[in-house]
């Protein structure tokens, strides 16, 4: 006789989990595990994680988005949290840690409620009410006067960016912020909402220290020039996307030669043809040729003869960026470019920095829309981490171009939210009340974690924060250096409204999704045997 129930109907290897204990609580546990991993990385004093991914690449970082990405989470519920963090990363580019940790905290509190006897659907409705209220309160907390900002004023930009960068590279935020702010302001278009993150490039060069980092208004290419001319000042640039070489037909061509003389002549006509083309380019005034494809020997020879510098950029995207830097229009084929299509660079030169040969194209004049942050550091992993901090900074800039509103940082907003949400919960009748209260309590994890990570006494800090906020000081936050509570207007820690809003929304979305699931049907793992046998054994809770 067949076994009764669903299990008998599924294919071998399928697993079916259902019910409160088996599915919901297990899911919450997995999410909790995940958030404990990321939580210690929250804030400026967060710890770094060393992650070695499946390609044996080493990451040393406290950027939650990177950590969860490289962890390759298998557990379905934990994966929902990871997806929320990814969405946050794509949307804003910062605040991934807050998303995961907050969702984890919400679920942990939900578990307590479930153990108390509340049904998940009641918790969900409470949480949903809470997030609506949170958005409302958050809008009230926006610092007045921050609705408009001059995105070209460095001071204003830095003040908004500092918290985001400081949470990744504490102690170095001043240097980094000013670098990033400069780079962003340089390339900010007339309409700031069209700011493109892609226009701020990062070049990582091993050696030196952060203090040697600088901004290049233009591009830094990690390659050498093709020919022997390595330097050119105030030069016009011609860009050819299809390569600098003799032209070829799509159909296979055969050279028809009857005698030795013809062979000789053929070579000559080839030569003459190429010379004619290069000459035409040279006559148009171009002193630099940038090729998107191969550069033929013969073409190179004539370029040298006409004193033209030749660069090769094989990446299509890199070539487009170069066009933007120089203000050039790419030609498909080698031909005489019209004056309008020529670009211009102030200087283009091959330099050696820290043993790496790089080509630096500078363009200080207007029309340039690319700037590059040259980062220096002693190891690859430091450089990678610096790059992530810069990325976060640039993304913050993008976010502030769209929505410049700011809210107090350093846990001041969270405590205020917690406090007002609790008041709201008390006014509520019905079972939702418990869920909303728990939601409010979840906010406490931010100051708690910040303080914990900084080695301070979390309970004391939270208590004094509550006292301060209770007496009406809505901007009271933690000063991690002194270990006391201070008004954030003094410490100048501001977070972007958009970052916080999206992080909280994604987090509660993810938490509610996890709570809504009451059955899981898992297919057999596809593919061959796993590399790590131990991992396969504990397929239920793979977080490591």
């Amino acid at each position: 006789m067949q076994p009764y129930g669903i299990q008998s109907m599924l294919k071998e290897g399928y697993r079916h989990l259902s019910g409160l204990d088996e599915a919901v609580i297990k899911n919450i546990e997995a999410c909790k595990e995940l958030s404990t991993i990321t939580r210690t990385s929250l804030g400026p004093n967060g710890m770094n994680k060393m992650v070695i991914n499946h390609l044996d690449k080493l990451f040393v970082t406290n950027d939650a988005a990177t950590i969860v990405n490289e962890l390759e989470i298998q557990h379905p519920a934990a994966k929902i949290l990871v997806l929320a963090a990814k969405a946050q990363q794509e949307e804003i580019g910062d605040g991934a840690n807050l998303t995961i940790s907050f969702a984890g905290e919400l679920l942990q509190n939900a578990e307590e409620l479930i153990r108390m006897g509340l049904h998940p659907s009641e918790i969900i409705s409470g949480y949903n009410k809470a997030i609506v209220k949170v958005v409302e309160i958050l809008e009230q907390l926006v610092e007045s006067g921050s609705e408009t900002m001059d995105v070209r004023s460095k001071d204003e930009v830095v003040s908004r960016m500092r918290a985001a960068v400081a949470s990744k590279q504490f102690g170095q935020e001043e240097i980094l912020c000013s670098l990033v702010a400069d780079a962003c302001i340089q390339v900010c278009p007339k309409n700031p909402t069209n700011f493109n993150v892609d226009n701020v490039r990062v070049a990582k060069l091993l050696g030196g220290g952060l203090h040697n980092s600088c901004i290049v208004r233009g591009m830094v290419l990690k390659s050498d020039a093709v020919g022997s001319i390595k330097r050119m000042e105030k030069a016009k640039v011609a860009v050819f996307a299809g390569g600098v070489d003799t032209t070829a037909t799509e159909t296979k061509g055969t050279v028809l030669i009857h005698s030795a003389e013809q062979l000789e002549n053929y070579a000559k006509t080839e030569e003459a043809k190429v010379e004619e083309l290069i000459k035409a380019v040279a006559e148009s005034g171009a002193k630099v040729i940038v090729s998107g494809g191969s550069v033929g020997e013969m073409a190179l020879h004539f370029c040298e003869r006409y004193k033209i510098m030749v660069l090769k950029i094989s990446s299509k995207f890199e070539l487009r960026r170069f066009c933007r830097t120089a203000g050039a229009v790419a030609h498909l084929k080698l031909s005489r470019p019209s004056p309008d299509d020529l670009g211009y660079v102030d200087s283009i030169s091959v330099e050696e920095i820290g043993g790496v040969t790089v080509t630096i194209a500078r363009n200080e004049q207007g029309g340039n829309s690319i700037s590059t942050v040259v980062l220096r550091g002693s190891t690859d992993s430091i450089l990678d981490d610096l790059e992530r901090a810069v990325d976060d900074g640039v993304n913050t800039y993008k976010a502030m171009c769209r929505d410049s509103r700011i809210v107090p940082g350093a846990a001041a907003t969270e405590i205020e939210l917690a406090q007002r949400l609790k008041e709201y919960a008390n006014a509520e009748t019905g079972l939702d009340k418990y869920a909303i209260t728990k939601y409010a309590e979840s906010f406490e994890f931010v100051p708690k974690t910040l303080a914990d990570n900084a080695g301070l006494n979390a309970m004391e800090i939270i208590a004094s924060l509550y006292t301060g906020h209770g007496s009406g000081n809505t901007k009271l936050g933690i000063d991690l250096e002194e270990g006391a509570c201070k008004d954030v207007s003094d410490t100048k820690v501001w977070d972007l409204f958009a970052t916080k809003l999206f992080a909280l929304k994604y987090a509660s979305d993810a938490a509610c999704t996890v709570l809504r699931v009451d059955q899981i049907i898992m297919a057999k793992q596809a593919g061959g045997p796993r590399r790590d046998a131990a991992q396969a054994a504990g397929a239920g809770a793979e977080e490591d």
Partner: protein
Amino acid sequence: MSVRVLNPNAEVLNKTAALHMTINAAKGLQDVLKSNLGPKGTIKMLVGGSGDIKLTKDGNTLLKEMQIQNPTAIMIARTAVAQDDISGDGTTSTVIFIGELMKQSERCIDEGMHPRVLVDGFEIAKRATLQFLDNFKTPVVMGDEPDKEILKMVARTTLRTKLYEGLADQLTDIVVNSVLCIRKPEEGIDLFMVEIMHMRHKFDVDTRLVEGLVLDHGSRHPDMKRRAENCHILTCNVSLEYEKSEINAGFFYSNAEQREAMVTAERRSVDERVQKIIDLKKKVCAGNDNNFVIINQKGIDPPSLDLLAREGIIALRRAKRRNMERLVLACGGEAVNSVDDLTPESLGWAGLVYEHVLGEEKYTFVEQVKNPNSCTILIKGPNDHTIAQIKDAVRDGLRSVKNTIEDECVVLGAGAFEVAARQHLLNEVKKTVQGRAQLGVEAFANALLVVPKTLAENAGLDTQDVIISLTSEHDNGNVVGLNLQDGEPIDPQLAGIFDNYSVKRQLINSGPVIASQLLLVDEVIRAGRNMRKPTA
């Protein structure tokens, strides 16, 4: 056993064992899907072989993804899939209705009844119920201007069973408007003319209806405009790239000049085609600041793109075939297959064309069109599983609106029909039946109650209380449904809960058929190679 003699490896289940196996399987499947039904149903999480997540409440999706092995369960699942193919909804109801029919039969069979008698009863009951349904339905007049309110109510009823309330209400408008948009008098509704496009971006509540078209690719040339207003749209299916000749041709040349000539000659025919388009553009855009957009089903190679870009034309290549149809419906004009007969009349018009870049993906929006007969539902969501969930729901929502327009009638929902039908069967039909088939009718009538019962159960209400209060209201002559908030009877008409007529009809038609088939099985034989032993 005779089969054993013929094939010693065969597995045989006979008589009661076979019957019990099928009944158990039906009940098992019912158990799984039961918690899905209705607005208060819960979500299932499906984890695929590669670890991808799918969240669903849709019975059809669930059955498709579950990879069921049990033969009986497969039969039931197929019926459900057929239900989905025909009416687009009601899969969960089908499965639980069949399960309930089997459960009711089990009781009678245990008491010594022959399945055949039950099946006869089912048949009578089925016919009577269908007749009753025809009297029970609420006709809706679908003239040139369909009653939007009714359509909305139907769509809302369907969507709320798939998504949470807030989102469902928002999608209701979108779904109804999109179907009305593509609806043409005197013609059937082709739901493919509603493009469903998704972007992984923002939140699920940012889903919206675009009156126009959204294409999931952008122009391939860096110098083309990202945004253009007042656009002439040329929809074409013309290859604008060099194509190799069919025969194996080669060039023979003896100096570089000749080769250059060959290179130009090779491209000439393509260039000429491009030139014709450019000429047309110059003709229609002369003296005004209108723009020109080409959307081509075939390819456009880089040199042609370059030529077009220099003329300020936006060109998109390799559009989907279906999108070409939609474009013509949305923007007007006609799709051209050759550039020889280009006229300004064949051009469509859109007020706004712009490109939206999202990470690596590019999207092109064609908006502000005149008299659209095609539109796009743009689904947004923070992650793939949310998008997939909304997508499935939108599909069902569209189907329900289409069904309503085609049926020209609706059925009261919230379990009202089921309770009414049961009363009708027990009070009227049963008396007209002679002999033991009466029990079959009774089993059928009781099985109908599974829908309100499950609805109540999922909402956390007491099933017995609910059924009693519903039936007593019906005995008093009131047609009532179940209010899932407080478990009290409500009038579905006032609450705006309506189901599709075709869904219910299909359900009542197919359920008893499959149940009868299963009941009449008296031997299950498994033989052949690679038999899967049950995992005991």
